[in-house]
């Protein structure tokens, strides 16, 4: 494998890791606040559709992004209603949201565009274009560093940079701000937050809303950045891989970045090569497909460092004496 191929694989890794990373951070906010969310997949899918649909109708990708975020946040609202206000089962609510998105997107797509559950292909202003960072062309002549900068670091859509910027931002919010302190507390011991005079419900809704926002961006990136338009079930399990990455990262932002890059790399490799020949021993492509899930199970099993979720996760808060 020559250096340019490597760069291309890594470049594709970055692109594929972006939606995972956004969804993973979305899940991080929600689960750190004690609300389990297996509905990341559905929210992304919903956002992917609405961003593509609105971008296609209006020709503006930014309006598309807004619509995607809004639709994802509506689903977040439903999840909040079920799991916070009505103290329902968060896992079941998440499952319902995934199906709701899977069904509604196709239903509406068919009704609006009559193209078999997809949106028209996006063109021009309907897509996020790649940004060439300053000096990318000028530096491309420099060996190693030049192509790295030009290929790998420069030349992504704005949402890729947003996603990567979200990592330090999330870390800072979580560990350096009042909101972060309260958010972490409400996922560990909501009764402590409540008796300290802070609204558990308010905090949890805020967390769920941020989760919706980030899932919205993730979905919009899928349909308007990574690809040009919405197709049925286009998230293809990314929400679950993001969930896996979240567990892999033990609910910490920087580790989430590494986990998403790792899973993105696996996807990139699986996309580029069918079977990988390791000196006579052939790894079938299906192994690459399954690897994120297998790794997550191994992590969950606690054989490689135990993943302990936030203590109050999944439990609705009921005031007790």
């Amino acid at each position: 494998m020559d250096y340019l191929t490597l760069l291309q694989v890594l470049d594709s890794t970055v692109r594929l890791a972006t939606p995972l990373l956004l969804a993973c951070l979305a899940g991080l906010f929600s689960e750190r606040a004690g609300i389990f969310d297996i509905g990341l997949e559905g929210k992304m899918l919903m956002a992917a559709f609405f961003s593509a649909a609105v971008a296609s109708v209006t020709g503006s990708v930014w309006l598309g992004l807004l619509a995607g975020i809004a639709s994802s946040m509506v689903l977040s609202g439903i999840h909040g209603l079920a799991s916070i206000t009505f103290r329902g089962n968060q896992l079941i609510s998440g499952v319902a949201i995934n199906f709701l998105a899977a069904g509604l997107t196709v239903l509406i797509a068919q009704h609006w565009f009559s193209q078999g559950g997809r949106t028209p292909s996006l063109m021009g202003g309907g897509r996020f274009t790649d940004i060439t960072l300053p000096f990318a062309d000028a530096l491309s002549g420099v060996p190693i560093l030049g192509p790295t900068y030009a290929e790998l670091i420069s030349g992504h859509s704005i949402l890729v940079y947003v996603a990567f910027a979200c990592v330090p931002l999330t870390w800072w919010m979580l560990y350096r701000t009042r909101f972060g302190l309260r958010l972490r507390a409400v996922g560990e011991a909501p009764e402590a937050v409540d008796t300290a005079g802070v609204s558990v419900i308010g905090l949890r809704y805020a967390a769920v809303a941020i989760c919706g926002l980030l899932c919205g961006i993730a979905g919009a990136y899928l349909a308007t950045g990574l690809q040009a338009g919405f197709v049925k079930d286009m998230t293809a399990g990314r929400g679950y891989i993001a969930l896996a990455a979240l567990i892999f990262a033990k609910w910490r932002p920087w580790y989430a970045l590494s986990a998403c890059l790792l899973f993105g790399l696996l996807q990139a490799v699986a996309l580029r090569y069918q079977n990988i020949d390791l000196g006579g021993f052939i790894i079938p492509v299906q192994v690459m497909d399954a690897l994120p899930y297998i790794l997550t199970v191994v992590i969950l099993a606690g054989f490689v460092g135990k993943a302990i979720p936030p203590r109050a996760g999944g439990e609705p808060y009921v005031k007790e004496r």
Partner: protein
Amino acid sequence: MDKMPAWADAFLVPLISLILAALLSALVILAIGESPTEALKLMVEGALMRSAGWGYTLYYATNFIFTGLAVSVAFHARMFNIGGEGQATLGGLGVALVCLYLPWPHWSLALIGASLGAAAFGALWALIPAWLQAKRGSHIVITTIMFNFIAAALLNYVLVNLLKPAGAMDPASATFPDATHLPTFQQMFSTADNPLFRGAPANISFFLALIACVAVWLLIWRTRLGYEIRALGHSESAARYAGISPVRIIVIAMLISGGLSGLMAVNTTMGESERLLMNATEGAGFIGIAVALMGRNHPFGVLLAALLFGFLYQGGAELALWTSIPRELIVVIQALVILFTGALDNMVRMPLERLFLLLRRTPKGPAE
């Protein structure tokens, strides 16, 4: 005292949730410019007014009975088995191996063999998540989701690299030998002058599903194991006190659950397609969740809910055929049913409880 009578909790809450889901679905149909009443009429005609329609409805219902029972048994042990999809996938593999590689003289023996194979493979696929949950506390919801994806990759590999006949294009196994073909309803119930269930896939495994309903009912409410499963589901600490091993019960309940999911493949792979296909489960593993929730984890309720979803599935197919409403409408309805009966049930229960409290208090006059 309980806030409301048990019958209200068992029937009224799911019924109202179902009505809410139905109303919202009607709104969705309205929103895409179709008439809900017309749609319902089409669905009823297509699914229930002809024997062929019933043949499809019951075929789908068979799948949902198995997966619904699977989710229910796990729920009784307070395990949320979301891995029905993967377990059914593996069940299909079990069926295929049994049908392809063992010489069967007659379908009845093949049915027994395939059922054992399906249940064993399904159970096996549930075993690892169960063991990890019981022994290492790994959250079973996450592990079973992961195992769904791993199962899909595994089946893909097996079909493409091992089972696909040489020269074939699509990733599917060879067709099973004739001796393993199950009698369909058409063969069983048609007479020369009165053809019934023509072309419909419903087959003898529907009766297997009914037997499974009775067996699960006996298991849960009449056997020691069921008593222990429910006890563990209600309170792990109490179960430990009583000498019930949580590890043992979790593993057994999940094995039964996985086995039931796997059995679904007898209907699809052996009864219908007669060869192993990719995506043979068609999401039935997930519909089991809706069915179990609506059926309140009771086999009789599961049966009713499975019939309802069978109707929805077949009706939805009819809709897609005759109108511009895609089949995904059913996915939306399924989502709404899960949402209302599983996650928003308190939204229905809370006002009902208040109503019953009010009803109970008024005849006694003002409170002390």
